[in-house]
């Protein structure tokens, strides 16, 4: 689908990571090191998302592929934000810079995404899409300095699992959410009342 490369995009991304191909090796740097016996497994989406259908007459819990609806509806490129929509997706909160829907979604096939230059990206490879704007994060991730890791620090002894972008960042509102601490120490020095001296 390289013919899409020339399609003008109505997007205004604040951080543009330069033109041309931004594809980088997705193999984490540590996995490329010699002597590695166990794999570094990178989480990734299993495929295109399924959309819950909440319509009368449809059994509850029914989901459909994006293309189920979008195949029959020509994309309206003037719709930049969910506020512009007359129906569907209206409640979707998008807080991702000035990105429009079609900055990431591919209007020729809604079951996949596309890069800024129009080349398609499978949902499984979403990191390629994020990385074209978020280069420093992608660089840090490749070097193990961004994103959670579980398993073995020593790959000669066991495997490792790495998070990928969408594990922690909602692509529509990627700022890491605030959290409520659930576990507090009972600090003998800073909260003298917390522990009674028998």
């Amino acid at each position: 689908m390289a013919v899409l490369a020339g399609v003008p995009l109505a997007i205004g991304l604040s951080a543009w990571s330069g033109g041309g191909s931004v594809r980088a090796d997705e193999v984490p740097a540590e996995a490329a090191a010699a002597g590695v016996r166990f794999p570094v497994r990178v989480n990734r989406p299993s495929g295109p998302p399924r959309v819950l259908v909440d319509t009368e007459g449809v059994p509850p819990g029914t989901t459909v592929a994006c293309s189920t609806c979008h195949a029959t509806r020509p994309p309206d490129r003037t719709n930049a934000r969910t506020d512009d929509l007359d129906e569907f997706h209206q409640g979707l909160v998008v807080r991702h810079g000035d990105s429009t829907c079609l900055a990431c979604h591919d209007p020729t096939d809604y079951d996949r995404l596309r890069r800024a230059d129009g080349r398609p990206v499978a949902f499984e490879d979403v990191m390629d899409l994020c990385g074209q704007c978020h280069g420093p994060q992608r660089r840090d991730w490749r070097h193990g300095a961004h994103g959670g890791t579980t398993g073995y620090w020593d790959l000669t002894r066991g495997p490792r699992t790495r998070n990928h972008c969408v594990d922690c960042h909602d692509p529509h509102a990627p700022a890491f959410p605030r959290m409520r601490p659930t576990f507090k120490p009972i600090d003998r020095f800073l909260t003298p009342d917390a522990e009674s001296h028998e």
Partner: protein
Amino acid sequence: MSTRTKPEGKRPTRRAVVKGAAVTLGAAAFAKAVSPVAEFAEGLTVEQFLRRHYKELSEDDKREVLARIERDTEAEYGAACKVADPPPLPGVKFAYAINLSKCNGNGKCVEACHRENNHDRDTNQSYIRVLELEKGSMDLEKGNTTYDHAVPAEGKDYLPVQCQQCDAPPCTAVCPVEATWKEPDGIVVVDYDWCIGCRYCEAACPYHARRFNWKKPTIPADEVNPDQGLLSNRIRPQGVMEKCHFCLHRTREGRLPACAEACPTGARVFGNVADPASELRWILANKRVFVLKEELGTKPSFFYFFDD
């Protein structure tokens, strides 16, 4: 050593019998002599009292010690556990780096440490403290660990502090009985059976990273982590010091420490700093890195860094 050849076989020599009897009687007498200790320090067995220093334990001694701790844990906590003593890995120097641009103070590391390391449930003990500081301030003394609101809060920074595994540790130098020392892989450990609980090390540590067991830890049987290490997370007795040991029962098996796996922001990076290909080395070479209280010359193996 005598050069005489002893008659081998059925009949023990007189010498051996006398020696054996003396050892048995001696041990019995000594056990009797130290029996007041059992009353003074409840739960301390004679076997425990007579134990050698960790570094002087033979493999057989160690097996006995591990088996004894497993038995005691089973008896006192009703939980079956496996106590091991994994040795330091050759060519490995452990270090830690925390991304302060990512840490949001949620405290999952504190809780993970609490559960992994069989800490006292009553006091929510943990080897990690997360300090909430005024933004831009690095005044640890004004840090607050008991904040209870959504994080990150406006105008606040968060600083997780645990043992910095110093290369020049002030804590080990002050121990009057050598119950704490630095291992070849950089981990500062405590022999809980050797510690006399004087708390000099707690006073010496500029990071407030050492904890004293004021009471016998209470842990429900079903919450005891059965994967235990002799110098790490086996349940500590009352009256001894304890500290972060980089989860050596996990990390010396190649696994990540519990706090690193628990961090939901990906702020914690752990590994072998002696490996030039490690993530840590990349961070040290490419990020703005600092150590806590560098001016004290403690040479921490624990680094903090910022993005950008």
